[in-house]
């Protein structure tokens, strides 16, 4: 017998406080029936003999003390099925595309369990995204979580879509299944993604979860968990390689802050809750590869840095958890360069495991290191030129300065539909390195220089 309680004592923000219940489990899934018959859903945040605190996903508007509360005795679950592919769902997993209801093969707890570190396999399969600044200098591998740090008005969505379109493991025809979770993005942005998915036929191997800007903030907190549960299902039950795109993590964190303040918690830095690190880790750490299992989960979370500030708590805590970051730069964007990825603050921690002989090419690391060093020095020199003028530079400095320009113009810049193979990327790299004399290439082994250094300079 499922009991209905009509003992709501207090409603505050997204929370309701229910009295005089039987023992209720922590984290239990809750239905709230409104007098007009609509049903809202929620989750138990705090339970004791005296009072139970429930967080309502769809927000508390329209609730009053006459509502009845039903505790289901279970935690929130995703109805997982292979038929989810090709479907568009709401942020809490309800069909939104007018299609039939989902017939679950398995009910899965959306909070997921932590992967045993002992079961993890080291991610080392190179993913070719076709974007030079990622493949060449910040390589993505299967099982990695590599966020895009961006800012408002920058083309992070285009980059994410280009990755989703082009990503593949060279030498295998397998396409990635894409799980796309939108959190608090505008209807227009969502439309942009959907159009692209439909146009390219990507939708049939994608699952889309949409929580839009006007959907309740509290629903945002479960959207990525739903999406990652679906991804784990595809990866570990159906042996698929899954690419998860989460956008925008900043909206997710704002929702977390909103909930925290509704619960009257002690706020941490900039008002975000103290457990934000643990909470974000609970999302990001769900990327990975398991020994002896064929599927994998790779994550590309997108987050817009408030005020382009990389030390803001959201990018800061993310950066401590994720395996690197791709930083989109306003400066490059203003110069009209697409994709405006600034490689200097960007990083892929798993790059070394995924590149080199037998994976990409023997010269990959050396080329990448040399370009980094050259570009970093070149950018420093730009500052110097602004003060002392180009004439005061030494011969070497002038060459380096020119290299930095070539790097942006030829290596970073590419077309929105230009899918460069890793060979192409390295060739572009060598062409621009060819503008420097061999003796400047201190980070490259002589043998490799002899083999790959272009015969004629790049500016043919």
């Amino acid at each position, binding site marked *: 017998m499922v009991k209905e309680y009509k003992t709501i004592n207090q409603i505050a923000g997204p929370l309701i406080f229910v009295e005089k219940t039987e*023992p209720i489990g922590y*984290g239990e899934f809750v239905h709230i029936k409104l007098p007009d018959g609509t049903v809202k859903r929620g989750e138990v945040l705090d*339970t004791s003999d005296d009072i139970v605190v429930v967080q309502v996903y769809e927000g508390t508007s329209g609730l009053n003390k006459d509502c009845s509360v039903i505790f289901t005795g279970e935690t929130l679950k995703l109805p997982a099925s292979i038929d989810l592919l090709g479907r568009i769902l709401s942020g809490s997993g309800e069909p939104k595309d007018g299609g039939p209801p989902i017939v679950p093969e398995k009910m899965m707890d959306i909070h997921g369990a932590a992967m045993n570190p002992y079961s993890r396999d080291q991610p080392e399969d190179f993913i070719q995204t076709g974007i030079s600044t990622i493949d060449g200098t910040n390589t993505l591998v299967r099982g990695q979580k590599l966020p895009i740090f961006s800012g408002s008005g920058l083309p992070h969505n285009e980059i994410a879509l280009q990755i989703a379109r082009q990503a593949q493991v060279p030498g295998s025809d397998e396409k990635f299944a894409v799980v796309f979770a939108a959190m608090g993005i505008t209807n227009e942005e969502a439309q942009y993604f959907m159009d692209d998915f439909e146009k390219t036929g990507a939708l049939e191997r994608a699952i889309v979860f949409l929580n839009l800007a006007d959907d309740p903030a509290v629903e945002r907190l479960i959207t990525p968990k739903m999406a990652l549960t679906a991804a784990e299902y595809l990866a570990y039950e159906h042996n698929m390689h899954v690419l998860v795109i989460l956008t925008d993590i900043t909206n997710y964190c704002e929702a977390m802050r909103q909930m925290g303040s509704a619960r009257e918690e002690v706020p941490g830095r900039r008002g975000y809750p*103290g457990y934000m690190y643990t909470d974000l880790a609970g999302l990001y750490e769900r990327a990975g590869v398991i020994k002896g299992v064929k599927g994998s989960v790779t994550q590309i979370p997108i987050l817009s840095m408030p005020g382009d500030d990389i*030390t803001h708590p959201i990018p800061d805590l993310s950066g401590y958890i994720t395996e690197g970051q791709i930083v989109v730069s306003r400066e490059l964007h203003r110069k009209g360069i697409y994709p405006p990825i600034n490689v*200097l603050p960007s990083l892929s921690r798993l790059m070394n495991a995924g590149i080199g002989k037998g994976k990409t090419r023997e010269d990959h690391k050396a080329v990448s290191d040399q370009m980094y060093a050259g570009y970093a020095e070149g950018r420093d020199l730009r500052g110097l030129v602004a003060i002392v003028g180009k004439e*005061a530079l030494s011969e070497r400095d002038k060459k380096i300065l020119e290299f930095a320009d070539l790097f942006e113009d030829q290596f970073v810049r590419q077309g929105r539909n230009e899918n460069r193979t890793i060979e192409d990327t390295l060739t572009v790299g060598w062409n621009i390195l060819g503008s420097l004399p061999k003796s400047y290439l201190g980070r490259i082994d002589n043998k490799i220089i002899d083999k790959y250094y272009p015969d004629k300079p790049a500016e043919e």
Partner: protein
Amino acid sequence: MEVKGKIYRVAGPVVTIAGIDTKMYDVVKVGHEGLMGEVIKIVGDKSVVQVYEETSGLKPGEPVENTGLPLSVELGPGLLESIYDGIQRPLGVLKEEMGNFIHRGVTADGLDHSKKWDFKACVSPGDSIKPGDMIGSVQETENILHKIFLPPNANEGKIKEIKSGSFTVVDIIGKMEDGTELKLSHKWPVRNPRPVKFKMAPKTPLVTGQRILDTMFPIAKGGTAAIPGPFGSGKTVTQQQLAKWSDANIVVYIGCGERGNEMAEVLNEFPELEDPQTGRPLMERTVLIANTSNMPVAAREASIYTGITIAEYYRDMGYDVALMADSTSRWAEAMREISSRLEEMPGEEGYPAYLSSRLAEFYERAGIVETFNDDVGSITVIGAVSPAGGDISEPVSQGTLRIVKVFWALDSSLSQKRHFPAINWLNSYSLYMDSLSPWYEENIAPDWNDLRGKSMEILQAESELLEIVQLVGSDALPDDQQVTLEVARMLREIYLQQNSFHPVDTYCSFDKQYKLLKGILRYNELAEAALESNVEVSDILHVSSKDELAKLKYEENFDSMIGPVMDQMEKEFSTLGGY
């Protein structure tokens, strides 16, 4: 005697229980599944428990048992080569029991209770022994003799019986006259430091094979160091390099609230890498504790204590133990999270007011000591700190820096230039320099300290010159300063930069460090002399042997190559002076 109570309230990892008497830090089993937790607060007839496992589904009214014992680890042969979660459950056993994901309610012994060890007694019936005295030993791995002691928390007395032979860690190997049973293993509460006879002053360096650490900012065996740095600046790589190459006998590596994939990397690599001292697989001297960021937060809080207790146990056997904690910030955040659920009055940035005393207590468990068995053992603690926004004015960094003696300042502007290890040579410091100087003079070379001093001087001069260069350009500098800039560049690029992914460069012996440093500074001497005899500065800067020197660090047969390169350098300079 176990008494039953029941759950009163559940809020995340913090559970309030009632109807049961508890002491602070008692371990209790909560709910029908017996989830492990620890009492952290007592209010009236209720106790507040932090639970080490996921609590969803837990209901008020479920039963609670008090074990009456504090959180303890099981110490004995078999710790080495293990990989544990924060409360010493072997992850391999958890995998067998629960599959690839960690669910809850599984208990697992810290040591394998079925494996037999060959025990050799070194005392006989009738001998009087005190707590901490050795009673025998087990060969744990090829190089580690595992000494078995009368546990420090036992009573002194006479041995009634003891025998050598093949035993598991729970078998009885002997008895004391008062009836105390002797075993190969014993339990120790993690929050209590293990006693020692006395602590000594550190006098020998922990050799790490990392040039910037060994030469510029050394840490002593028994010392403490902190590596604060923003994300992506190389904390974890530095910690792993230390775990791989330092000349400790035992390494305890705590992955506290960090990435799962990084632990997978360690697990993949360590069994294949060789210990540079013994040639055996690195894993044979390593204990790993992996409580990744998505594993329960209370167990993360405990992981640091679990690690240091294991380290102390091996120190008591007279070994040099190095403990890496990556990252202490995650540990502090776990404290903050628990503290805020307890609704404690927060201190700075929401951290509990007791943060700095907890940090101090932890680092104080490092040190070089004489044990009750008259051995000398040490624990060197190296803690990574992950300051929010890379700004070390935050409480965890500040609390740490007040205690530790060595500060390796990671710098993101260096890591963006791919200068690794990205340790800033101007901001870092080591307070062990003076106490270690005699060791260097005796064991490396009499002029070692002078070389180090000279190179720091040049690097310091460079930073001042660079400010001028920013204004006038480098060509406008006088000749001697241009030489200084060049030597500083060589020091940075040849000496301080070290490629941890390069098979040869990843480890640099003291001998090689000395020769390399000497080579660079010899160039400086020759260049200065050449300037005096009016040689053109551009000729000095184009000496080709210095480029040769730059590539030498990657060569396997460095030793045979350095001589000819240096000879060539002398020759080149002598021809320069010739006209």
